[in-house]
């Protein structure tokens, strides 16, 4: 056994262990694994590896129940990102991850490094990143910090993505007071690789060199993973030094250098240094391959002087990777990184000990068996209580507005339903020249370069549904991405999930988590739409108040023939407008109730997954047969908002006649029943579509025609295109121009 150097090592007291976020039981387990007391460096390593962020100790029991397999899934959860087969020996690689706490403390850098981190997860596996997406939640617009945070986060996402040259093609943004002290910044990246060129992290080959590439290591981000695993308190400002600083220029160089490196056959294993930096990358590579690593910390490229082993192992400096190379190829690999002006250092080698052994100034400062460190990490079955379901609200109990016109204009001029153009115009959404559907539609679409194929991507979650009923909300988040992908004509293939919740040690919060997971599981199962990667972000609370449960879902679908893609914009005067799906007029928990009545209550609309699948498969088949000229799913704000958005996107008016039967008009127009789409079609194709709907037992209703420049709902309201444009387009620019 290696002799540990105990010089300069403080006594590991119970208080010190507690400061590192480890419980008494975890402390005991650590001593048992080591067979002795830990050094300070070892304590640091255990504390980050067993942090909630890295170990998933509160969530993994439940995450295990999610469906992760399908014939088209190549790698599910467990790798840096999930991998699916998109035909022709090509694979799509994707993942979504949170960067919530850093973004609240330092919005520009927090969001920027969130993008950088998720990009590395994707190109580590051999993929060229081809699209960025995001899911953002801010506090109430009236909260004094919201403008500053929105402005900084958007600039940070743009600043990073624009420079690395990966288009940011879409996302979603909500505002709600539950995020006042804890915003959510979830970033998703999608990459493209050949199936026979996918790289994994499991190290192999005793004696193989371990190489450090990328930026130098500094003191930034130390304990970032631990911060992500605790509740926020008033002293957030003091945590600013734990936020990492991003350098997208270096990331761009790193992407190009790694892709060049991976086009050869020199790489045995490769892993990015993300949360917990050098610690998690080396431990995961070693434990994944059942080998040991000896690392000489003196060889780690350092940006600051007198860094200790503890600091080096816990630094979260950005734009760094760890690579295991074939032994005789170091010179060749070094030449690639020199060309790109990046640091390249041999810092260690693979051993057969199974231990992570760290040397510093010629002495051993840590020696930890990696298998138990990684695999025997704590797993908790935290107590939980089921969320009490709210009663269903009867639409007849909600007042009918006097003026539908004003009501609709007020809704699309709200923080929730207004245009997000102010945000996405700050993102280069067209670089790489393959973006064929820009933000603002149901799903963003990028071509698979040089082919007829395209990938459709959508991120969705309706937190108010999840708060009212985590199970239905979890189902709905998955179903909405599936519906959005369907609406552009894509076949939905798989999802990544980014599960943002409060403190799991509180049974009510844990109940929200368990409920949402159940909902996600059920939706993924019925829709054949597995989870292939993801991230859990807990402790999203400030001073004891949790956020709305927000399981953000990122869905990816395939269009085999990208020329069949459609958008939400009606194309031709005289086309016929139809509604697919059933309307019951569900007004509980809707945007209407929230914006117009100021009430956040009631059961959310239930998601009938079988109906969802039937209606979606029908719509997709019609798009694939080129029978539909435009399609928009009905979601937030209901049918009237859907119609308004189609007018806005197409610059063409609609003439609509409602057949609302017994349903009150406000419930018919603003109700949020699920599994619905508004479609347009040439009059010549209407009979075929009706017949097909009849055969498939799908509810289809005639709504009207594409004509003129006015949204005209007969006998109810008339709004011109220009009035809609003004109401929809002005909220966010006006709001943001009040910036101090």
């Amino acid at each position, binding site marked *: 056994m290696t002799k540990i150097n105990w010089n300069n090592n403080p006594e590991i007291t119970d208080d010190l262990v507690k400061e590192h976020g480890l419980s008494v039981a975890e402390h005991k387990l650590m001593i048992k694994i080591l067979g002795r007391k830990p050094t300070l460096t070892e304590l640091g390593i255990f504390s980050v590896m067993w942090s909630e962020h890295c170990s998933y100790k509160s969530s993994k029991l439940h995450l295990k129940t999610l469906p992760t397999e399908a014939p088209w899934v190549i790698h599910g959860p467990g790798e840096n990102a999930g991998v699916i087969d998109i035909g022709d020996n090509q694979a799509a690689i994707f993942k979504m991850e949170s960067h919530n706490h850093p973004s609240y403390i330092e919005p520009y850098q927090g969001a920027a490094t969130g993008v950088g981190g998720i990009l590395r997860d994707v190109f580590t596996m051999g993929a060229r990143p081809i699209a960025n997406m995001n899911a953002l939640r801010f506090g109430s617009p009236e909260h004094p910090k919201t403008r500053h945070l929105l402005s900084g986060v958007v*600039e940070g996402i743009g600043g990073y993505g*624009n420079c690395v*040259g990966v288009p940011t093609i879409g996302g979603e943004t909500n505002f709600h007071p539950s995020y006042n002290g804890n915003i959510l910044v979830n970033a998703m990246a999608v990459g493209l690789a050949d199936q026979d060129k996918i790289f994994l992290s499991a190290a192999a080959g005793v004696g193989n060199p371990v190489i450090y590439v990328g930026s130098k290591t500094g003191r930034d981000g130390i304990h970032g993973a631990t911060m992500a695993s605790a509740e926020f308190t008033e002293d957030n400002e003091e945590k600013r030094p734990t936020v990492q600083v991003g350098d997208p220029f270096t990331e761009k160089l790193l992407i190009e250098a790694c892709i060049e490196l991976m086009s050869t056959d020199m790489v045995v294993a490769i892993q990015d240094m993300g949360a917990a930096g050098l610690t998690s990358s080396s431990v995961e590579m070693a434990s994944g391959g059942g080998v040991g690593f000896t690392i000489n910390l003196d060889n780690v490229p350092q940006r600051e002087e007198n860094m200790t082993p503890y600091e080096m192992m816990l630094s979260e400096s950005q734009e760094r990777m760890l690579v295991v190379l074939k032994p005789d190829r170091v010179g060749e690999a070094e030449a690639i990184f020199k060309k790109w*002006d990046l640091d390249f250092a041999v810092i260690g080698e693979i051993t057969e000990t199974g231990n992570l052994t760290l040397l510093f100034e010629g002495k051993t400062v840590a020696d930890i068996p990696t298998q138990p460190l990684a695999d025997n990490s704590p797993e908790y079955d935290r107590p939980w209580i089921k969320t009490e379901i709210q009663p269903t609200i009867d639409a007849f109990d909600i007042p009918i507005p006097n003026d539908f016109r004003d009501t609709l204009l007020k809704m699309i001029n709200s923080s929730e339903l207004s245009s997000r153009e102010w945000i996405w*115009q700050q993102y280069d959404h067209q670089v*790489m*020249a393959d973006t064929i559907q820009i933000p603002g539609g149901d799903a963003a679409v990028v071509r698979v370069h040089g082919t007829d194929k395209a990938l459709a991507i959508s991120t969705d979650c309706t937190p108010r549904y999840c708060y009212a009923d985590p199970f239905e909300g979890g189902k709905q988040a998955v179903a909405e991405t599936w519906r959005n992908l369907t609406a552009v004509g894509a076949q939905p293939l798989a999802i990544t999930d980014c599960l943002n919740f409060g403190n799991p040690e509180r049974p009510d919060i844990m109940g929200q988590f368990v409920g949402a997971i159940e909902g996600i599981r059920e939706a993924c199962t019925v829709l054949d739409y597995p989870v292939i990667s993801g991230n859990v972000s807990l402790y999203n609370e400030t001073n004891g108040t949790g956020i709305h449960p927000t399981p953000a879902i990122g869905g990816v679908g395939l269009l085999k023939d990208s020329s069949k893609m459609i958008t939400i914009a009606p194309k031709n005067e005289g086309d016929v407008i139809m509604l697919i799906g059933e309307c019951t007029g569900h007004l509980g928990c809707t945007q209407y109730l929230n914006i117009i009545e100021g009430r956040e209550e009631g059961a959310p609309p239930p998601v009938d997954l079988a109906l969802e699948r039937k209606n979606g498969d029908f719509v997709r088949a019609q798009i694939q047969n080129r029978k539909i000229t435009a399609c928009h799913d009905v979601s937030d704000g209901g049918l009237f908002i859907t119609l308004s958005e189609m007018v806005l996107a197409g610059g063409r008016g609609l003439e609509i006649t409602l057949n609302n039967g017994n349903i009150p008009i406000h419930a018919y127009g603003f109700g949020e029943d699920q599994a619905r789409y508004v479609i347009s079609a040439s009059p010549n194709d209407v009979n075929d579509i009706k017949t097909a709907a009849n055969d498939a037992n799908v509810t289809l209703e005639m709504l009207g025609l594409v004509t003129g420049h006015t949204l005209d709902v007969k006998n109810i309201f008339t709004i011109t295109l220009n009035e809609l444009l003004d109401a929809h387009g002005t909220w966010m620019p006006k709001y943001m121009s009040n910036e101090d």
Partner: protein
Amino acid sequence: MKSAVVTFPASNCNRDMFDALEKLTGKTPYQIWHQDSEIPDVDLIALPGGFSFGDYLRCGAMAARSPAIKAIALHAERGGNVIGVCNGFQVLTEMGLLPGALMRNSSLKFVCKTVHLQVENTLTNFTNAYTKGQVIDIPVAHHDGNYFADEDTLKMLETNGQIPFRYVSKAGEATASANPNGSQNNIAGIINERGNVLGMMPHPERLIEDAQGGTDGRGFFESIINTLK
């Protein structure tokens, strides 16, 4: 027609430019790394968009000192055609091949959207496939596209027809609201006096196929092909 695309470390529209040239000219362009001090004999050198060296200093300032720059300047001096799009335009002004400078957008924000451009001079090597006064749609994506020059330079550009592209409204008016970055006189692109070096902020290479939302960028490449026939 032979062309070359120069790549700086953080160029990110080099592939888009390469693909557009290859697709529209039918010939594969040379790829020039910024460290290359020699460039093969070509009819056109293209400096693509991106962030060249991260642009932490002035955009294009460091790129303008790369080894390949001398060869580009020599090519221009001999009358060879050079185009710079977005970051490429910034590099051309930093090199001194085009007058003026590109400052931070007046909004202080990055802007990515499709804008209307009026083609004001169709007698250039790069615009002859358009019709005079034609309003075309081309995307912009930049943080520093706010063209600035002193009054004498502006006067010279205006009187010599050295402003082939100007930001306009759909109706063809050079209004402030049609200008995405606050550039002087709504300038979107300029050409040198000799007529062989053009810089523009908008990205014609992003709009050459219907699937990309339009084909108004094709005329730019077709013009160069016409010129070199």
